[in-house]
């Protein structure tokens, strides 16, 4: 069977198989990127959701108040579509001195008739300001439960460090309120709840 036509056909079959193998491998690689990505973020210290819940779990800064400096803090609120709530900040923007303690009220209302539990996940933009933003008291430290149509004020006490880099004179604190599905059957495997609890005890 040394005739060239068969030989070419065999060669073609081998190359085709090899290339098909590459395609399958790359398809698998796409899925392998999911854990790899999480790993990469952990190693390089890019914030994952679990780490974000720890934002502001910092001891209050005690370097005194810098009255010569003004920093603008903006508040941003998002409600995940899976949570039937209304959620907003009483103030959208305030000017603060680093080192001083401030209080802001947030307002939440359950638009449904069922009891629903949620948790707010904070994040700070620009992210470089994260280590300088301390929350003394925050509704986001705990899960919040609202009975049907209940409304509640949710207080936040925060302080900005006097060490905040010079070039940052405005920052945004953003909250995403997510539903916790702990009471329902079939809890999602990747439900944020256990991860949040774990990081808080660190």
């Amino acid at each position, binding site marked *: 069977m040394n005739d060239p036509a068969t030989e070419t056909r065999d060669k073609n079959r081998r190359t085709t198989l090899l290339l098909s193998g590459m395609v399958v491998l790359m398809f698998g690689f796409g899925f392998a*990127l999911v854990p790899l990505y999480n790993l990469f973020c952990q190693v390089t210290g890019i914030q994952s959701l679990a780490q974000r819940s720890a934002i502001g779990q910092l001891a209050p800064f005690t370097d005194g108040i810098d009255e010569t400096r003004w920093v603008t803090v903006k508040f941003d609120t998002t409600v995940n579509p899976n949570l039937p709530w209304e959620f907003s900040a009483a103030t959208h923007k305030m000017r603060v001195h680093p080192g001083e303690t401030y209080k802001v009220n947030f307002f939440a209302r359950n638009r449904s008739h069922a009891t629903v539990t949620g948790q707010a996940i904070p994040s700070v933009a620009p992210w470089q300001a994260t280590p300088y933003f301390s929350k003394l008291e925050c509704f986001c430290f705990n899960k919040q439960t609202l009975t049907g149509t209940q409304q509640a004020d949710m207080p936040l006490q925060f302080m900005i460090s006097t060490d905040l880099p010079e070039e940052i004179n405005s920052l945004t604190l953003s909250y995403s309120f997510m539903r916790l599905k702990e009471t329902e059957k079939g809890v999602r495997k990747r439900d944020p709840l256990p991860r949040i609890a774990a990081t808080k005890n660190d």
Partner: protein
Amino acid sequence: MTTTTLTHDEAHHHEAPQGWRRWLFSTNHKDIGTLYLLFALIMLFLGGASAMLIRMELFQPGIQLIDPDLYNNLVTNHALIMIFGGVMPAAAGLANWMIPMMIGAPDMALPRMNNLSFWVLPAAATMLILSFVIPFFPGGGTQINTGWTIYPPLSLQVGMSMDFLIFAIHLLGISSVLASINIIVTLLNMRAPGMTLLKMPMFCWTWLVTAFLLILVIPVLAGGVTMLLFDRHFGTSFFDAAGGGDPVLFQHLFWFFGHPEVYILLLPSIGVLSHVIPTFARKPLFGYKSMVGAMLAVATIGMVVWAHHQYTVGMSLGAVTYFMIGTILISIPVGLMVFNFIATMWRGAMTFETPMLFAVSIVLMFTFGGLSGVMLAVVPADMQYHDSMFVVAHFHYVLMPGAVFGLFAGVFYWLPKWTGHMYDEKLGKIFFWTNVISFNITFFPQHFLGLAGMPRRIVDYNVMFTEFNVISSIGAMVFGLSHLLLLYIVIKTIRGGKKAENRPWEGAKGLEWELESPPAFHTWTTAPQIK
């Protein structure tokens, strides 16, 4: 004996079905190439029509013709139709037609798979068009207002048309992967005796690299959109933040495909240029080996710089610095290609037939688009330009000249070979000038709009942007309509015209010009010997 097998095959093929069966059951690389090119031409007009609607809406500030959701739906469809329906099939059509003729092979290595990879496309296009149309029917859900990048969380919230789009992407991916496997097998195993890899025509080289890129990145996109589908319907949380997923992960998966994709679109056209410029400069290509090396470098670095599309998502400083340096590095091998083209033209006996006009304009305008690309690669600058009309101007300057004009050059260059008739040179030149001038009128002002702060993908804009938008829209109407002239020229050439010689261009080199014009149904049944 080989010869007898071949004659048997040949005899069998001459009884090949006629009429519609000839096309549906075709395993002939020339017929399939023609199908690809016709398909791409239809898609060019569909994508072009949606672009013209977009520009009509942007003619004046305010909302006149189309509502915001439809506007974003059009933007999404324009991109997907042009990229997956227009440029990629057109390049695959050129590959099907030319590669076997250039390397002295009787046909593609896997003719039946070739048939499959084309005939998946109309099905995919139907799905794609359905994803655009379905929201207009009762119960059709919301429109796809995400743009072609289909980022979650928005893409998780779109109605069922997103599922059509996801399956359309799967089908388009299958088609490209099958075509790529076929092209690689053909190029590696079917070359005429004596044609070593480094004697292979440049167009074949560019397609070899393109096909490998496709095989490496399309499956990752397929994986990404599959995860999207699972998040939408099967309760997983790959990208859904409420379940612990990360929407930014999708951006990484998408751009891992999306960035090499721009080289997939570009390289076949670079291959065409490497034939057109030497032909009309009547000099061999300057630096063939450096060209191959540069292309491999572009493809390799291009695989690992994807995140420059996402500088603003909040990556660490180290990561953005890496992606910035990597991206800027690409301009070195690309610059080398451009210099090779210029050196090929240097002191050549140049004439300016339509393919050469397109080639020269590509060298100029693609370089221009490349330079705005370097601006965008710089992180602090990109923070200003991100998602502005500047980006739109940039990628149209690289994609239109870099990919589409290159394909036009190839079509005009090889049309006499395919049809056996010369195209109307005068009409070709009129087409070139209207096309190129109106292209610049359309997209050049968009640089200024972007620098002044006009965002992309938004239906309305501030009145201060009106003047440049008016200019751009007028240019776009001329640009869009000018393609009717292309259609006319192509039809006219197919139907008749001056008889083309075997080698209609005096400076043309290569095996394909040794065949008659038009070539027989089966060519190179006995492989030529390359010295």
